[in-house]
């Protein structure tokens, strides 16, 4: 186990460097001059421009810029955005908001997705099963931005149950609707995955044994069936938590939440290189750690899997 973790962490290093290099190249080799943009329509003073270029390290070749950036990252310095605000400060503002939203969405995935999948899987071919299958199919095929507007119009504008946009992200009740919208797609996947997994395990030998031993239904389902069926679902949920962090661009835009997605979208549009690279670097880290944790969880949940 220890060797496995070590090997995985070592493998993460080139992936981390590669992914950050990729996003760095994408952002900084793009046409457009952020320094010239700072001056707007006014003619720029060449000395000031040269000074700013030097300050942002833009007068160096691209590979040197990358090395400089990476060196700073290892000192936990994410640089300064072109507006003069430290990127770490921008992230400290945005990440808590997104983490709250992601946790609300994650909660819905588990609380709604799992039971739906359980009901459908246990009663295959029943009306409940068909309803769950159809509902999840519809949710999967409606794009999130359409779903977001429908939810906003119906629940906030027509029914007036919630506010249309989020005024204060610390108030969890305001995050319920955006959380549901953000969760919708993964929720449908969780339900379908649970259903398939339960359907497969229902026919397993250990299930027949458990029933034949005369165990109460509750124990058979809770202790034998669920434990075995949830392994792929946990894997999905683990990687999804990472995806929820960065995948909220659309949801955060619709509900006007000042989270990572919103900040990132604005930064991309304004060619705020340092902010984009900084946030994506953190997102890559979250993704790598999440996939490592999922693989380790796998071994804990399923003793048949052993990492040499």
């Amino acid at each position, binding site marked *: 186990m220890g060797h496995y973790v070590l090997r995985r962490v070592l*493998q993460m290093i*080139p*992936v*981390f460097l*590669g*992914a950050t290099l*990729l*996003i760095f190249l*994408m*952002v900084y080799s*793009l*046409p*457009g001059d952020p320094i010239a943009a700072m001056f707007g329509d006014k003619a720029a003073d060449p000395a000031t421009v040269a000074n700013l270029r030097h300050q942002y390290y833009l007068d160096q070749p691209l590979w040197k810029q990358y090395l400089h950036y990476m060196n700073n990252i290892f000192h936990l310095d994410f640089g300064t955005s072109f507006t003069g605000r430290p990127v770490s400060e921008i992230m400290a503002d945005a990440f808590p908001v997104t983490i709250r939203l992601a946790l609300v969405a994650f909660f819905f995935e588990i609380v709604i997705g799992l039971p739906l999948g359980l009901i459908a899987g246990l009663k295959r071919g029943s009306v409940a099963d068909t309803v769950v299958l159809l509902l999840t*199919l*519809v949710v*999967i*095929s*409606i*794009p*999130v*931005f*359409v779903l977001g*507007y429908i939810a906003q*119009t119906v629940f906030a*504008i027509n029914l007036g149950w919630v506010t249309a946009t989020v005024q204060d992200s610390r108030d969890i009740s305001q995050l319920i609707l955006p959380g549901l919208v953000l969760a919708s797609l993964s929720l449908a996947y969780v339900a379908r995955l649970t259903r398939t997994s339960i359907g497969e395990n229902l026919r397993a030998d250990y299930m027949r044994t458990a029933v034949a031993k005369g165990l109460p239904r509750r124990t058979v389902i809770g202790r034998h069936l669920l434990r075995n069926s949830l392994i792929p679902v946990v894997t999905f949920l683990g990687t999804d938590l990472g*995806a929820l962090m*960065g*995948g909220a*661009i*659309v949801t955060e*835009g619709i509900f006007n939440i000042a989270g990572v997605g919103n900040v*990132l*979208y604005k930064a*991309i*549009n304004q*060619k705020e290189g340092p902010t*984009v690279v900084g946030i*994506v670097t953190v*997102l*890559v880290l979250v*993704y*790598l750690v999440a996939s490592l944790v999922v693989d380790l969880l796998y071994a804990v949940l399923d003793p048949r899997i052993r990492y040499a």
Partner: protein
Amino acid sequence: MPDLIEKNAPAQAVASAEPKPEKPRSLGLDAWHDLRKRPVFIISAALIVLLIAFAIAPSLFTSVDPRAGDLRLHYLTKPNYLHFFQADWFGYDGQGRSIYARMIYGARASVVVGICVTAGVTVLGGLAGMIAGYYGGWVDTIISRVTDMFFGIPLLLGALVVLNAFTTRTVWSVVFALVALGWTQMTRVMRGSVITVKQADYVTAARALGAGTARIMFKHILPNAIAPVIVVATIALGGYIATEATLSFLGIGLQDPTISWGIDINSAQKVIRTAPFALFFPAGMLSVTVLAFIMLGDAVRDALDPKLR
């Protein structure tokens, strides 16, 4: 499988002296026979054929110019749901353009992006996955790590950054961005599939008979390893269409002379309270399209997976 079945064919023909001997069928043909009987496949295939017809010849379905705006007819003129196939069937958008005509013409961008991205991703990613799975060793390590790198960057995010570089964006810039960032998905599927297939006895047999690398790869491994790739590609096609619409909706995908459901949904969002139909029809069309491809993928998976038969 086709090779094995073909070799068994003469024996089978001799054994069954009935008037209609069962013709030997490859996995693909077998799946096709299975598919034709499934209602889900028939419905989704019909929808897709209709969609492709919209894309190829939109003028067959409407004679209205989708770009002609008449400001007297803006979205406050309510749609006339009894005027079938007329300009005002689904009403007008904010610039007085026929929503029905734009719905039909919008299919082209979606279909082109969906098909081209899927084709590009399948060829590029499939080839990389085949090489990684077949050669193994350090080649596999490098390709797998590169795949991991791309997986760390969400598709939508990466596409936003790449597309921001283009000042004028056409269908082809969107295709380029999605292929460049999305090919790794197919690499993983193909690699896994090739690794299981290459250990089969018929591959060893082919090698023993002196078949070259290219022949083993494309004649023996590819036909047997392609099934999971086809399934993932079909389902992903719907996803790419949704991604294009999302990018256009965010204002970083297609641009105005091109007609896209994403752009129309974005402009309808401003008038959602007074004219919900302006959002409903392009959004419905988009959802039905994605749904059709997901259902087709499901049906193809069931037909291609021998374990489910």
